[in-house]
């Protein structure tokens, strides 16, 4: 009987711990992009430290999931690297605001044991790899870009996102711009039909597959490749220069749109002009309702204000580029414009 009593105590204790009785304050529910997850997890933890009583639960289920759950009303805010389409916005009963938080680079990380150089890829070769037309690493076209290097004869395994992904949206947006064939065969979007390769779940999943499979090449956010010591490819940008992914490259890519930035911030900065620009860069957004009830809406507003000011300082350490200053000022104004009922 003693064991039974212990069991009952455990269960009741957990229920108590789980019930609202012992806690007060606000809990925010968020879901969405895996792209900025490493930064957001840091942000939320830091914000919670300086704002007692606030708890933020963010589940990194992919941009598609974030938008979906926001539309269904099961989360308080969403996160996505792909701006919501007009169709998606139309589904929402209340207006939704896009708040750009940071910039990131979508990098091509690869696993080629036994070869130590820095791989150079051109847009055409990259699209053909993901179209499944270039199937081996020692293909002449890849060698041509890499000063005739002797790459191994391993099969190339493209790794893509199996879930609805803003990272996919940025990547396919780029490929559609540089390859008409890719645009007609596959198209751009959060979820496309890839002609070749293997699917991983989330940035995490793709990184995991690349890390484990010799010959794999997958598109992930920069910090995922860095944390796992995966090699990343240099890409030829619109100005014809091979650029390695970097914060400067991403920031340079954003320069072009600053003057023409729309009020809702929905832009694409892939294949940007500029010698230093990294071609596959993108903003990542927090999606929040324009107006909402206190106290949650107030906390969201505070969170966003913190994110575009103090939070920006934490970005470079995790390989995300902070917002350009002029843009940050505009965004702060938008945040102040949010209504709290």
């Amino acid at each position, binding site marked *: 009987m003693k064991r039974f009593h212990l069991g009952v105590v455990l269960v009741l204790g957990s229920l108590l711990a789980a019930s609202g009785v012992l806690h007060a304050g606000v809990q925010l529910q968020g879901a969405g992009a895996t792209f900025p997850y490493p930064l957001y997890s840091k942000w939320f933890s830091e914000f919670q430290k300086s704002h007692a009583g606030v708890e933020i639960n963010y589940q990194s*289920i*992919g941009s*598609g*999931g*974030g*938008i*979906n*759950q926001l*539309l269904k009303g099961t989360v308080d805010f969403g996160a996505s690297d792909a701006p919501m389409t007009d169709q*998606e916005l139309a*589904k929402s009963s209340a207006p939704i605001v896009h708040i750009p938080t940071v910039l990131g680079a979508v990098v091509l990380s690869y696993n080629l044991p036994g070869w130590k150089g820095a791989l150079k890829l051109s847009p055409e070769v990259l699209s053909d790899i993901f179209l499944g037309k270039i199937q081996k690493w020692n293909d002449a076209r890849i060698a041509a870009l890499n000063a005739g290097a002797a790459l191994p004869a391993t*099969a190339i*395994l493209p790794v893509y996102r*199996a*879930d*609805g992904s803003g990272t996919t949206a940025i990547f396919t947006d780029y490929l559609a711009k540089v390859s008409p064939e890719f645009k007609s065969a596959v*198209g751009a*979007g*959060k*979820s*496309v*039909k*890839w002609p070749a*390769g*293997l*699917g*991983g*779940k989330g940035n995490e999943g793709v990184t*995991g*597959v690349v890390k*484990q*499979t010799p*010959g794999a090449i997958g598109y992930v956010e920069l910090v995922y490749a860095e944390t796992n010591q995966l090699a990343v490819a240099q890409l030829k940008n619109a100005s014809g220069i091979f650029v390695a992914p970097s914060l400067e490259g991403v920031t340079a890519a954003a320069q072009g749109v600053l003057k023409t930035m729309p009020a809702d911030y929905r832009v694409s900065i892939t294949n940007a002009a500029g010698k230093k620009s990294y071609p596959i860069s993108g903003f990542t957004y927090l999606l929040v309702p324009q107006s909402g009830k206190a106290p949650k809406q107030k906390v969201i507003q505070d969170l966003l204000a913190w994110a575009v000011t103090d939070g920006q300082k934490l970005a470079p350490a995790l390989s995300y580029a902070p917002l350009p200053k002029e843009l940050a000022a505009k965004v702060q104004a938008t945040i102040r414009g949010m209504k709290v009922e």
Partner: protein
Amino acid sequence: MKADRIFLQILRVAAGASLLVLAAFFIQLFWAALPAFRAAGAGFFTSTDWSPGQQEFGAGAFIYGTLVSSVLALLISVPVSVATALCLTELLPARLAGVISFVVEMLAAIPSVVFGLWGVFVLSPVLRATVQPFLAEKLPWVPLFSGPPLGIGMMSAGVILAIMITPTLTALSREVFLAIPRLQREAALALGATRWEAIRVAVLQSAKGGLWGAIILGWGRALGETMAVTMVIGNRPQVSASLFAPAQTLAAVLANEYAEATDDLHLSALAAVGFTLLLVSTVIHLGAKLWIRRGGKA
């Protein structure tokens, strides 16, 4: 007696509630799936084109993946399970049989996600590094072993599923063998049969019907596995002749895509996938139970 009547009423309510829940289950799933069925028609089951972005929903690839991975699992597991059950009932001394039976049952208790974990980090790399290259080298002309050895894919899923259904199949086969009267074996041995001949004639022959029932039940369980499969199968809706290729199953696509289906048709298509899975699983289970009840005769 009044108390008795109240008692019965309470029980009726409880039982009725379960019935209601199940009805709600089927109805809700079917209702949600209807738009997709209407839009795609019979093509839903035959088309292998699943692209949410292009509003094309064909579950053919998932049906293929589910069938092939589960059949592969059966091909591997049935011989092993029947052999184990035979050892437990015919060959091993009672104490050892008890221990082995215990160990096999413990295997049944391991959660699917742990199998997935082991599959991703242990099994798939082993398959990729040794088994698959070996097969590709020795039997390159067999389409089953074509394509690059990835580790992750149909073969991995099949092997993991085989391990997962072995305890069930072993337990069921064991019950079938135990039901055969002792006399049969003794008669065979008395007639001068060798150990193996006695097993073959006295046990396996009579057990055929029951074994088929067990196999179908095991098959039904393999069909519904989600977590372990989604972690090792590669998540690619495609039909490929090669066992090395990645694939996708009905259950796994639900786990991957349900939370993020924004578009109504996509959600409906996923509900349709769920309904298909429910239908297949139910038919197989009921079929197995019917078969067993009929005594295993066609």
